[in-house]
């Protein structure tokens, strides 16, 4: 199908973009990489009055390390992030997640900020960013605010970003290997129909161990099992301070059951998703621990 008519604003600055969103009064939509919006326009699931193009705004692309965090600007292409040494070295979980996102044709256009804003419950970048305790900066004509990803995802394709706000950048706290010998390990696993498809279920784990192999920090996030990507705090709390081995992981896996509410759809049944969530969580946790082990 063909998109319905709309007005097109090619924003050359962040100020122009937020002004166009404000003028749109809720009926203007941002196009970044277009990998989710273009299908929605073609199928007329989205019929905005105005499309605001942010691809020409230079301040919206780039990756930099500033003050203990790595900042990825919203319009940075997924392919650029995947190839970035900064991402590979300092945000290994994000690199692992992006390697599951789409295909070369879609990663060359699709953006990091676009994936977060679109908030498909089965997409990989939101899941990794949630496990990494990332934050996003949002800007409207009224000013800029920051939102933790834990508070950002409200439901399938629904986020805390208001219609008049633009996602500027994503802040990832750096978790470097400590001088005290602490080390970080990460793992990302998913089941999908084909490589590059959206996940049926996905698991992201990030574990920090001290020099003696005890867990200082544990993060486990699951996707495809709720309307939003979900951390499993009860499981994380039980792993902290312990020495994580296969028996320890198996002992805490039951915490997942209460935290997830998977549904049935054409891809998988709820029961299958529950089962796979446990399997992938176990695999991701053990692999992250092995990577972090001194």
């Amino acid at each position: 199908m063909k998109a319905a008519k709309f007005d097109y604003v090619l924003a050359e600055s962040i100020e122009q973009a937020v002004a166009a969103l404000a003028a749109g009064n809720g009926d203007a939509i941002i196009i970044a990489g277009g990998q989710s919006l273009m299908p929605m326009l073609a199928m007329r699931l989205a019929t905005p009055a105005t499309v605001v193009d942010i691809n020409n705004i230079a301040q919206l692309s780039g990756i930099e390390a500033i003050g203990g965090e790595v900042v990825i600007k919203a319009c940075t292409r997924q392919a650029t992030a995947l190839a970035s040494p900064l991402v590979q070295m300092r945000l290994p979980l994000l690199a692992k997640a992006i390697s599951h996102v789409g295909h070369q044709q879609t990663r060359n256009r699709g953006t990091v900020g676009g994936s977060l804003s679109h908030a498909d419950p089965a997409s990989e970048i939101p899941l990794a960013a949630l496990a990494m305790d990332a934050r996003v900066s949002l800007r409207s004509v009224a000013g800029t605010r920051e939102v933790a990803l834990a508070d950002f995802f409200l439901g399938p394709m629904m986020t805390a970003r208001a219609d008049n706000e633009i996602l500027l950048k994503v802040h990832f706290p750096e978790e470097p290997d400590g001088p005290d010998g602490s080390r970080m390990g990460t793992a990302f696993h998913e089941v999908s129909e084909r490589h590059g498809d959206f996940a049926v279920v996905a698991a992201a784990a990030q574990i920090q161990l001290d020099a003696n192999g005890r867990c200082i920090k544990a993060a486990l996030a699951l996707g495809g099992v709720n309307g939003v990507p979900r951390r499993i705090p009860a499981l994380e709390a039980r792993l902290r301070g312990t020495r994580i081995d296969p028996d320890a992981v198996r002992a805490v896996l039951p915490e997942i059951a209460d935290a997830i509410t998977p549904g049935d759809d054409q891809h998988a049944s709820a029961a299958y998703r529950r089962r796979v969530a446990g399997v992938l969580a176990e695999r991701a946790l053990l692999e992250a621990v092995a990577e972090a082990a001194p």
Partner: protein
Amino acid sequence: MSQREINLSINGKTYAAAVEPRLSLLDFLRDHAGLTGTHVGCEHGVCGACSILFDGVPIRSCLMLAVQADGHAITTVEGLCNEDGAPGPLQDAFQEAHGLQCGYCTPGMLISAQALLAGNSDPSIAEIKDAIGGNLCRCTGYVQIIEAIQLAASRLREAGQ
């Protein structure tokens, strides 16, 4: 809605046009530039038949607006021919190795393969599968497509020596 002027380069030739913002780049290439080698499959980013090179990297032309191509350089499947218009090395290899049946997916497969071989003259089967992972083919079963890309790669290596 008002039309917008765009200027872009396609296969080394400059095109200027006035287009509606809602026009996809895919429809522009076929209906306005007359380059029907690029195929319309699903029109929503699933099949890869519409793949083109955009500033040298493969993308899906159904997932871009024509206005977004203003000032950019595009290569379509027509641009993979030799200068005299005869099939280029990849196209020859697809023909010889039976890398196509109905031909619907072929322009996208050729573009993905072109992008792969531009940066990797000796791709493994896994690398080839990854490169064409975003292109669906309903006829060949993919095996002959992979063989065609291997054939083209080996010829390009020989020619380069």
